[in-house]
C-alpha cells in the first residue's frame, strides 16, 4: 500500500449535554460522537467513511481538520502531529498546514457566499494565505475553473446563477485553491440531482488521479462510496466497525452490521435478488451507547459476550480490520 499521509489514532470527541434551568446549567451527559477512532489514509488514496446519521462520520472529518476540538487522540499529517503544530508553531507554519488540508461541504447552496462573485470566492484563500502574488490571481482562478470543468467567463458570475452541480464544482475549486494534499469531502453529492451526481463523482476521481490528492469521502450512500474509494471504514455509534480495501469490504464483509447495511441498499436491477437482512429497532442514542458491542441489541448473531465485552478492532487476513467477536464465523 501507498505511504500513509494521514494517521488518526484513538480519536475521541464528546459533546456535553446540558439541562438548562432558569439560571443554572447542569451537565447531564455526553454525546459520544466519536469514541476512539483509528485509521490511516495513504497518499493519493480516497478513504470512504460510511455510516448512518449520528454515527460520527461528519464529526470525524471536522475533528481531523480541527474545525471541532478533539477531546483526546492524535492526528498525524505527513508524520507531524497537527494539534501540536496548530498550538505551538508560528503563524506561517499554521497557515501552511491549513493550506494543505481543505474541506468540501455537503450543501453548495449554503457554503458559497451569495454576495461574492465566483472569482472572489475562489481567490479568497489567496487573500488569507498570501501564497499567490496578486498579479497571478487571475491566471490561477481560471486554471482552477478549468480543472473543475467550468469556463473562464463563469468567474464574473454569482452563485445563484449556477445549478447545484456547478456550485459544487465551485466549492471544489475553492478547496483546490490552496493546493492541498488532503481534502475532506462531506457528502458532496447527496444534495444534488441523480443525473448530476455522476459528474461530481467522476470529477473527484479524476482530480485524485491527476493531482495525487488524498480524500476522506464521507457518505451514507454505499453505492457512491464503492465508486470512488480504495479503502472503506464503516462507523456505528462513534466506533469503527470494519476497515478494509473496497472490494474486500463489499464482497466479503465480516461484521454483521456491514452485512446488514450492504443488504439494505436497493440495487437497480430487478433480476438480482439479494437476501435482505432487516435489522430491528433504531440506532440507539449516542448519549447512552449500549454496553459491550454497541451493535448487540440489533445484531442477529449477538451472544452473551457481546453484551459484556467490547470487541477490539482486530486484523483478520491482510489489511482487513474488523470489530466483532465472531468475525471468523463469517470469513
Amino acid at each position, binding site marked *: 500500500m501507498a505511504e500513509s499521509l494521514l494517521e488518526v489514532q484513538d480519536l475521541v470527541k464528546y459533546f456535553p449535554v446540558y439541562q438548562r434551568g432558569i439560571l443554572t446549567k447542569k451537565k447531564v451527559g455526553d454525546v459520544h460522537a466519536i469514541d476512539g477512532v483509528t485509521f490511516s489514509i495513504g497518499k493519493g488514496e480516497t478513504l470512504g467513511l460510511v455510516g*448512518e*446519521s449520528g454515527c460520527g462520520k461528519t464529526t470525524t472529518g471536522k475533528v481531523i481538520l480541527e474545525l471541532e476540538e478533539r477531546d483526546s487522540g492524535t492526528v498525524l499529517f505527513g508524520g507531524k502531529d497537527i494539534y501540536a503544530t496548530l498550538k505551538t508553531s508560528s503563524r506561517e507554519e499554521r497557515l501552511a498546514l491549513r493550506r494543505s488540508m481543505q474541506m468540501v461541504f455537503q450543501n453548495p447552496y449554503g457554503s458559497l457566499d451569495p454576495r461574492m462573485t465566483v472569482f472572489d470566492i475562489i481567490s479568497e484563500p489567496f487573500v488569507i494565505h498570501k501564497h499567490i502574488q496578486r498579479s497571478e490571481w487571475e491566471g490561477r482562478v481560471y486554471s482552477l475553473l478549468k480543472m473543475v470543468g467550468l469556463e473562464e467567463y463563469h468567474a464574473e458570475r454569482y452563485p445563484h446563477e449556477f*445549478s447545484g*452541480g*456547478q456550485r459544487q464544482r465551485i466549492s471544489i475549486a475553492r478547496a483546490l485553491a490552496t493546493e492541498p494534499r488532503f481534502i475532506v469531502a462531506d457528502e458532496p453529492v447527496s444534495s444534488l*440531482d*441523480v*443525473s*448530476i*451526481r*455522476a*459528474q461530481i*463523482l*467522476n470529477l473527484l476521481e479524476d482530480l485524485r488521479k491527476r493531482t495525487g490528492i488524498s480524500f476522506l469521502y464521507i457518505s*451514507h*450512500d*454505499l*453505492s*457512491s462510496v*464503492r*465508486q470512488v474509494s480504495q479503502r472503506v471504514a464503516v462507523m456505528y455509534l462513534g466506533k469503527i466497525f470494519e476497515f478494509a480495501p*473496497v*472490494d474486500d469490504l*463489499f464482497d466479503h464483509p465480516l461484521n454483521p452490521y456491514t452485512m*446488514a*447495511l*450492504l*443488504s*439494505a*441498499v*436497493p*440495487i*437497480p*436491477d*430487478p*433480476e*438480482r435478488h439479494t437476501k*435482505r437482512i*432487516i*435489522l430491528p429497532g*433504531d*440506532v440507539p442514542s449516542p448519549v447512552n451507547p449500549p454496553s459491550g458491542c454497541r451493535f448487540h441489541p440489533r445484531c442477529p448473531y449477538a451472544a452473551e459476550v457481546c453484551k459484556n465485552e467490547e470487541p477490539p478492532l482486530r486484523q483478520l487476513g491482510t489489511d482487513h480490520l474488523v470489530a466483532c467477536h465472531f468475525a471468523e464465523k463469517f470469513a
Partner: protein
Amino acid sequence: MGELLRVDDLKTYFFTEAGVVKAVDGISFAVNEGEPLGLVGESGSGKTVTVLAAMGIVAKPGRIVGGKIFFKGEELQASSEKEMRKVRGKKIGYVSQDPNSSLDPLYPVGNQLVEVVRTHFDETKAEAWERGVKLLKLVGISEPEARMKAYPHELSGGMRQRVAIARALAGEPELLVADEPTTNLDVTIQAQVLDLLRNLGKELQMSLILITHDMGLIAEMTERVVVLYAGKVAEESATAEVFRSPKHPYTAALLASVPRLDQKAALVPIGGGIPNLINPPTGCRFNPRCTYSKQICVDNVPPLEEAGERRLVSCHRWKELDLRRKA
C-alpha cells in the same frame, strides 16, 4: 385486474411572477388494482405535482389547466370539494417525504389518527382510538397503546414515518401514494419501511404509487414504471423491461449514471442540467442533454408511441436506437 386510477393528458402549471412554470405538461398513465407502480424522475420532473393534482390539492399559484383524472372510471375533476374530501384519505392515501412536517408537533399521534378515522368513519372517540391502536400495530410499532399518547418529537424518524403511513391507511384507501417515503431515512430504517410497504400492499390488496428518484427502489418495489422528465412522460413499461432494455435515451442515461453497490463500472454522467420549465427546450425536452439528438428532436415534440405490449416511449428515434447496456 381492473384499472384503478387513470391520469389523462394532465397539465398543471404554476403561474409565478417570473412566468408560467409548466410543471406537468401532458402526463398520462394508469394504475391497475393491486399493482405497485413507480413514478421516477429527478426534482422538477413533475412526479409529485402529478399525484397532488390527482387528489386536487395543488397549492397556489398552481392550477390544473387541462386533462382528466378517473378513479375506477369515474371522473374526479368534476367532483365538488365535498366529494373530493371523500376521495382523499378514503380512496387515495398519501404519505409525504418528510414525516417531520407532515405530522402536527402539537398533538399526540393518537389524536392525529383519531381525527382521520372519524373523518371517514362514523365512530365514537373510543372506537376510533381502538382503530388507531390497531393501525399502529399494523405498521409494526411496538407498544401501540402507549405510543398513541406520544408526541411526534418523542419518536425516531423511522417511527414517525410509520405513523404517517398508519395515518394514510386510516381511511382504508384503495390506493396508497408514497412520495419519496424513505429519502430522509437511514438505509437500515429504509429497509424496514420498504418491507412494511411491500407487506401492506399484499395484505390489504392495495395499489401503490411509489414516487422516487432512486432506480434501486423502482427495481425492488414496483412492477410497472413511468419515467418522467421535465413534466412529460419519457417512457412507460413493465419494470423488468425498462432495466433490461430501456427505449428512451434519458432512461438509459440515468441507469448508466447511477453508481451500483454490486459492481464498479465507469459512470457515464449526463451532461448539462435539468431544464428551466418556464422556457423548456423546444421539441423533445431532453434534446439539449441527449447524445442521440438530431434536428428533428429540436423541431418537433415526440409523440408518446406504443413500443410493444403496454409499453410507451416518447422519442423520435426509439426504433433505430439500441440502448441496452453493454455487459
